[in-house]
């Protein structure tokens, strides 16, 4: 059950130290600047992206009502 060696995590450590924006920026930066017309982007990520602002609003309303000294 016990590991025999320490967990080697060169890539993880490098990204952790550099920070997430570096990797994300790299991914965006390497995108071809001339996108052929037949290629669409942004077709994944819509559902949950639209969801997080909603959670934020609901959460704020919930917290406001919770801390407003209600019964």
């Amino acid at each position, binding site marked *: 059950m016990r590991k025999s060696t320490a967990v080697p995590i060169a890539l993880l450590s490098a990204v952790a130290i550099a920070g997430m924006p570096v990797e994300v920026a790299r*991914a965006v930066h390497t995108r*071809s600047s001339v996108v052929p017309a037949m*290629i669409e982007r942004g077709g994944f990520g819509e559902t949950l992206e639209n969801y997080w602002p909603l959670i934020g609003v609901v959460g704020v309303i919930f917290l406001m009502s919770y801390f407003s000294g209600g019964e």
Partner: protein
Amino acid sequence: MERHRILPRPDWQKKVEQVGLTYHTVRMETYWDESTYWEFSAAEIDRIEAATSELQQMCLAAGDSILDNDRLGDLRIPPPACARIRETWNSEPPALYGRMDLAFDGRDVKLLEYNADTPTSLVEAAVAQWYWLEERYPEADQYNSIHEHLVAKWKELSGYMRQPVYFACESCDEDWMTITYLRDTAQQAGLGTEALVVRDIGWDSASQRFVDGGNRSMETIFKLYPWEAMLADRFGPHALETMGKTQWIEPIWKMMWSNKALLAILWEMYPNHELLLPAYLDGPRNLDEWVQKPILGREGANVTVKLGGITVESTPGRYGEGGFVWQQYVDLAGSGTSRKVIGSWLVDGEPCGMGVREPDGYVTNNSSRFVPHLFR
């Protein structure tokens, strides 16, 4: 099983950040909490491991039962996806990992749910708590060979996958570090990898293929993004149409296990099984104390806990439209005072480690504290 209070390492934030746990503090609250640890006995770890293994076998039988009895409708799975679920269940394309959430009081284990599609809290379970153990209690042991199992599984899959393997997630710190860690394990297995955010996946209508930021064809994609969201997205139909051309990890059949209707189906198949809690799809029936969960819910959203007719907790969210499961309430504190949930990890269907989460309330969510563990 005992909970200990200790002083955290003075520079703990820096230490866990260096091993990838950059999200140790969530909304100004400590998420990685090393002021506490849980000590287990070897027998207790054996119990958790054996229970996880047995539950996995039961889930395999449940998958067969769902398909044999045409019950994908009970899971509210969109009809266009059903054929693909059947195909992939039979053809067994690459699948990697999952995390069962378990209640454990030192003796009894109960399945709370199975995060089989997009499990997180991986970096803290596989890496951060291991380094913590090495520094603080090197003489003790930890139930944790997640890393070794991941590397071994990637090696096994390498002959069946086209490279590079793309790793995609939403633009969020925890998800990005999770896929970075998984990339690390894949690279250690000799695989070529790339990473991008899911919004940057392109669709080339001319070649009918998904493409990366450089317009290169993407043939193997690990996605830390739930299937139900993918199918609701604009590119969802393309994912279904091109499933042979593009290998998605986790495969689409994982929709059967990540769906909380699985809990009710398991209870139907194995009534009164010692590892299960009573669970129903049509209401709480005769339960006095129950937890109502959306079958497609995530991270503790839209969960209601009712004890003795009184709602003691109800969380907000938007997952109420896909149906619910009603599961018997279990006291996560057991005979102690601190609630805890065991996240029991499986790689390639084999139990291989665990993490402990401590919710403040009745519902475990994405900010519930992660607490390291050891056993002696």
